[in-house]
């Protein structure tokens, strides 16, 4: 089957992965964020002995449990797809990509699963401190899971610590610590986890606001909304910091993604960051002279600073990256798309010739072809790209996803700050408008999280592995019908799960937090009034 003609199969495989990943990311952020919120609340309870904090902890733990139960194993579906829809990818990079996924499953998940049972079943059966330890270990387990998954994703964006073995046609891990300590992985981890904290904060604030609107469980709601606002404010401020880190990483390792994020076609020294902008739909080619923007407000020099920590640094645009010729940070000159494609083709040809020479026993030829392969391997993936346009991600999707995500982030910093101030001034009760804003802001936090992943994953197209393996080379030789069938199955299944979660959660939220009963001490007191 000619894969070049069967783009429908490639696109359905991409769509299926995107859909299942998107659904997965509806559950995970709340798990990550609620875990830490309930851990903090329980810590306050253990420290102060204030039963109202125990009540709050148990309520948010219940919500955590619902989300965790519905969301659990939605991630495993992604792993199913690697072996079926992405078999070339799985073979080509499985030695590296598989390792963090296995570690995630064995170490992090079991840590989480073990202590979660104490967390739910252990109230009044273990000591306060033991229970608190279990809660924190559950939180650490959930966060560790995220770390290993993000190590795997970061490696796809910035492949390091491996060497290609032409005999096995596999990339083989040569440096595990390079993979684990990748600057891209570490930044991505903090950014993704913080986004989960932000989602949970908005959720806690929103639900607490609803209780205040309904004038129910006032004490609980005030405690939760104040904590949620502080936690959310800190989370979103730190998100801005890690977002800055992300932009820096992207500029160094994926300059085309940065250019797409900003709709930057023509590079500039001292490039400004677009705060708000509208792209021109009439711009059809990276090479035409049509203005990319209908409208924009730019913060001068900020893009250069974000990308290169130099207010006057040159930021390459899409056109510069395609035509090459500009100076890179290391002093070398950027190759053009045509040059990279030529070198990629040399690498692929060298691989095939190497294998043929090895089969024939032509030792000297084997060495020649192996050298040619290694010299050009960095551009292996370019051999699959026909036109320069194949190397450009969807600029509109990447640009708007990035900017809307940032705007939502700024909005939440302001919202949580206002709620915090109103809480300190004891004005939350009487500010129904603010409570409604808090409640209806919940979906925006989820939206920001999804948009962040769209920037990360659409922005890196056409690559599954940056520069090494594009999507069209990574997919299996399956029929479109197979992928379409499983796409529909997943859409139905995940939608049903989501409806179930929302239904159960709404019921429990309407029920509200339970009263606490101390039943772990058997009191036998028989007192006789003092005889006189």
């Amino acid at each position: 089957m000619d894969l070049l003609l069967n783009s429908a199969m490639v696109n359905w495989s991409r769509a299926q992965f995107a859909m299942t990943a998107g659904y997965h990311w509806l559950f995970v952020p709340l798990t990550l964020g609620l875990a830490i919120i309930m851990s903090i609340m329980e810590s306050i309870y253990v420290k102060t002995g204030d039963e109202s904090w125990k009540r709050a902890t148990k309520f948010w733990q219940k919500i955590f449990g619902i989300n965790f139960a519905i969301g659990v194993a939605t991630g495993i579906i992604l792993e199913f797809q690697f072996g079926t829809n992405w078999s070339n990818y799985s073979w080509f990079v499985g030695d590296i990509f598989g390792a963090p996924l296995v570690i995630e499953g064995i170490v992090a998940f079991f840590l989480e699963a073990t202590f979660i049972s104490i967390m739910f079943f252990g109230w009044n059966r273990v000591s306060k401190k033991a229970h608190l330890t279990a809660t924190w270990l559950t939180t650490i387990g959930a966060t560790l899971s995220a770390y290993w998954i993000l190590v795997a994703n970061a490696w796809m964006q910035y492949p390091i610590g491996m060497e290609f073995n032409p005999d096995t046609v596999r990339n083989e891990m040569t440096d595990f610590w390079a993979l684990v300590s990748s600057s891209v992985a570490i930044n991505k981890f903090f950014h993704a986890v913080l986004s989960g904290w932000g989602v949970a904060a908005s959720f806690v604030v929103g639900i607490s606001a609803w209780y205040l609107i309904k004038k129910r469980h006032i004490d609980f709601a005030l405690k939760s909304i104040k904590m949620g606002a502080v936690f959310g404010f800190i989370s979103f401020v730190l998100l801005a910091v890690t977002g800055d880190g992300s932009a820096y990483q992207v500029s160094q390792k994926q300059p085309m993604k940065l250019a797409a994020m900003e709709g930057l076609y023509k590079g500039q020294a001292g490039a400004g960051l677009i705060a708000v902008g509208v792209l021109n739909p009439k711009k059809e080619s990276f090479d035409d002279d049509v203005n990319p923007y209908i409208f924009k407000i730019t913060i001068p020099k900020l893009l250069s600073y974000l990308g290169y920590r130099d207010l006057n640094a040159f930021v390459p645009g899409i056109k510069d990256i395609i035509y090459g010729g500009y100076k890179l940070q290391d002093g070398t000159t950027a190759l053009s798309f045509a040059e990279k494609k030529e070198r990629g083709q040399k690498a692929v040809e060298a691989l095939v010739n190497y294998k043929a020479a090895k089969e024939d026993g032509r030792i000297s030829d084997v060495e020649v072809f192996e050298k040619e392969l290694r010299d050009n391997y960095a551009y292996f993936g370019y051999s699959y790209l026909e036109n320069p346009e194949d190397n450009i991600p969807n600029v509109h999707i990447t640009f708007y996803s990035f900017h809307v995500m940032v705007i939502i982030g700024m909005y939440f910093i302001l919202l949580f700050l206002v709620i915090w101030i109103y809480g300190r001034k004891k004005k939350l009760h009487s500010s129904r408008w603010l409570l409604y804003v808090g409640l209806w802001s919940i979906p925006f936090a989820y939206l920001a999280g999804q948009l962040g992943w769209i920037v990360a994953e659409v922005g890196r197209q056409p690559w599954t592995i940056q520069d090494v393996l594009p999507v069209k080379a990574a997919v299996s030789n399956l029929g479109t019908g197979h992928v379409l069938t499983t796409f529909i199955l997943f859409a139905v299944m995940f939608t049903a799960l989501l409806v179930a979660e929302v239904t159960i959660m709404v019921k429990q939220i309407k029920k509200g937090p339970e009263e606490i009963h101390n039943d772990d001490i058997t009191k036998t007191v028989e007192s006789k009034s003092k005889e006189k």
Partner: protein
Amino acid sequence: MEMEIIPKKNHFNWFKMFWQGFTHMTKYGKTLWVLVILKLIIMFFILKPIFFPKYLNEKFTSDNDKASYVCTELFERSLKE
């Protein structure tokens, strides 16, 4: 006459904790467990074996054959000089 308050001793027992936890679950807890088990059954016993077999394992048994196949695929899909 006053009697002393005697705290009930709680010797931690994993089995007891799980048993009591499961048997005293609320209706929503039981519903969640049913959903989780149902979901895992569908995923691992229906979806995985029927719709998500490992593509290369179905076609080939040896690593050499898989490597050859992938090499051929990568070459065929590339744009030759």
